[in-house]
């Protein structure tokens, strides 16, 4: 009757976390901090691919899924950029270097950096904390520079103080070969002489050539209008990748929360090509 293939070899318990230790905390914006996490012995937690996520848990407080913002090319640690917006994230923001945390993962699929994206000109479009998953791809691409074409990064946030990873953007990305960085903020602000305006409008203004592959991440409303803008420029949905975010508990497609249509965002996502999203019921 039992049709499981329970053999004698020990199975990995996908719900069991490992202990991690916070080795660095950077304040990015008034409500975003980036946490660096390794194993207590100093080694890397696990290997991952750009776009994948991991569960962070503080026993007694809660557990949630966060995208891994560091690149897999980093051989030392994983990083998570986390916005303070709920019980667990508020707690995380009050933690210190040296504190322990539980981590399990990595979960989900990833941006197709080894296949479809290879040799392509890439257009990254991010809003606010949405830069977190794209940063993993951007650094992966820059560390494997010869495998990809030109890189354009359009990044916007509410104000200049809400731009995540600004130092890296200005000091590393903006100076890298064949990389163009286009920053924008929603409203005029003293001390800002860059572009002002919403990301979707800026993307249209930049009039990006249609031979690129676009990767979008940000608030759902931004993604929606950016996609419209790209289509107006002549982009096909098959050229555009984005991520979905729904409530998750297990991370392995069993607890039912992130189910949408025949997909589980934790397992079949979080990365989807925009034409694949069209196939899903409109409930995300």
């Amino acid at each position, binding site marked *: 009757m039992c049709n499981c293939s329970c053999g004698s070899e020990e199975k990995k318990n996908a719900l069991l976390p490992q202990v991690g230790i916070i080795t660095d905390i950077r304040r990015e914006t008034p409500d975003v901090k980036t946490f660096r996490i390794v194993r207590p012995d100093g080694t890397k937690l696990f290997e991952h691919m750009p776009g994948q996520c991991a569960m962070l848990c503080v026993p007694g407080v809660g557990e949630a899924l966060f995208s891994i913002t560091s690149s897999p090319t980093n051989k030392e640690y994983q990083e998570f950029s986390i916005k303070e917006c709920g019980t667990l994230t508020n707690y995380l923001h009050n933690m210190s270097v040296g504190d322990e945390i*539980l981590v399990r993962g990595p979960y989900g699929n990833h941006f197709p950096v080894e296949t479809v994206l290879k040799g392509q000109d890439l257009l990254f479009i991010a809003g606010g904390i949405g830069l977190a998953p794209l940063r993993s791809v951007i650094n992966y691409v820059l560390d494997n520079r010869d495998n990809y074409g030109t890189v354009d990064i359009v990044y916007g946030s509410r104000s200049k103080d809400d731009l995540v990873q600004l130092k890296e953007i200005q000091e590393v990305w903006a100076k890298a070969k064949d990389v163009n960085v286009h920053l924008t903020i929603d409203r005029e602000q003293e001390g800002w002489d860059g572009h002002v305006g919403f990301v979707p409008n800026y993307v249209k203004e930049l009039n990006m050539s249609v031979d690129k592959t676009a990767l979008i991440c940000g608030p759902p409303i931004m993604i929606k209008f950016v996609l419209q803008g790209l289509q107006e420029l002549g982009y096909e949905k098959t050229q555009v990748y984005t991520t979905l975010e729904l409530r998750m508990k297990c991370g392995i497609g069993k*607890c039912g929360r992130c189910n949408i249509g025949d997909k589980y965002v934790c397992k079949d996502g979080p990365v989807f090509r925009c034409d694949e999203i069209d196939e899903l019921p409109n409930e995300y």
Partner: protein
Amino acid sequence: MYQISREKMPELLAAVAKEMDLFLPVQNNGITNFGFWTEDAKVDLDTLKTVKSPKDAFFPQSEVLYSCYQKANKTSIEPAALKDAPFAIFGVRPCDVRAFDVLDRVFLSEPADVYYAARREHGIVVSLACHEPEDSCFCKTFGIDAAEPQADVAMWQVADGYAWEAKTEKGEKLTELVKEYLTEQDLAKEVEAEKEAIRTLIDKMPNSNLSLEGWGVGKTKERFDDPKWKELSDACLGCGTCTFSCPTCQCYDIKDFNTGNGVQRYRCWDSCMYSDFTMMAAGNNRTTQMQRFRQRFMHKLVYFPDNNDGMYSCVGCGRCVEKCPQSLNIVKVIKRMGGTK
């Protein structure tokens, strides 16, 4: 084939319980549910439907996954022990046996849930054909034969007792264990007559032959925006009774319990009918009861078949039909939106 008389049954059950945990329908305050055998348990193999399904046997309503302890700023994790001894689950109806197959699709698909897998590996299922099907039964709609239990051991009610047939290796082992209470007998005729009787009764049940036209693989676009969801769900209270009594509902939550000396991370049944089920700090993608109601039925009748070779995740046990305080149920949904008018 073997026969076990009604008088000998308590002895057989006691003999099984001496060797392993035995989970079976037990009556308490007039209500029959699966529970552990004890010497004074009021075993009830006659009631057709337990209030709750037997899914607890493999997917308990609540179970600890691991415990964490903090000592001098060092965190240690202690996983809960996995089931490592055989146990028997007795008197499971054919629809509920199929429900285990549905749960297997979820919990044993990669990465397998080790807690569930260990129970499944060690659990021996003894099924009992449905001598007296009820009006709320509609297992036949999903291709389940109430006369032909698919388990480790199958039983049929025959004159003054039960016919007993081992169907798997596990079933053979259990049969060996209780052989002294069984008498070898040629019951082919009696069992065939019982099967015929069951099938005749099942065919008379009002919902035995529902049309599933309009449901199943690839029907998302056709069904999702159907305006009938609104009227069908209007009366739904979002109480979750359907999900808790359902043998295939498997949504769960993972929570913390502070024991005072550590934290237990445990999982417990949850329900897609609840308003906070999908709520995140960033928002909620199902804010209305209509959306939650639709999710439950679309999952059972479209999304699950999409991912599981057409297998529906409803087994027609009829518990939700009987228990919904608002008389809403999957039969109404199937009829109203599918092929049956």
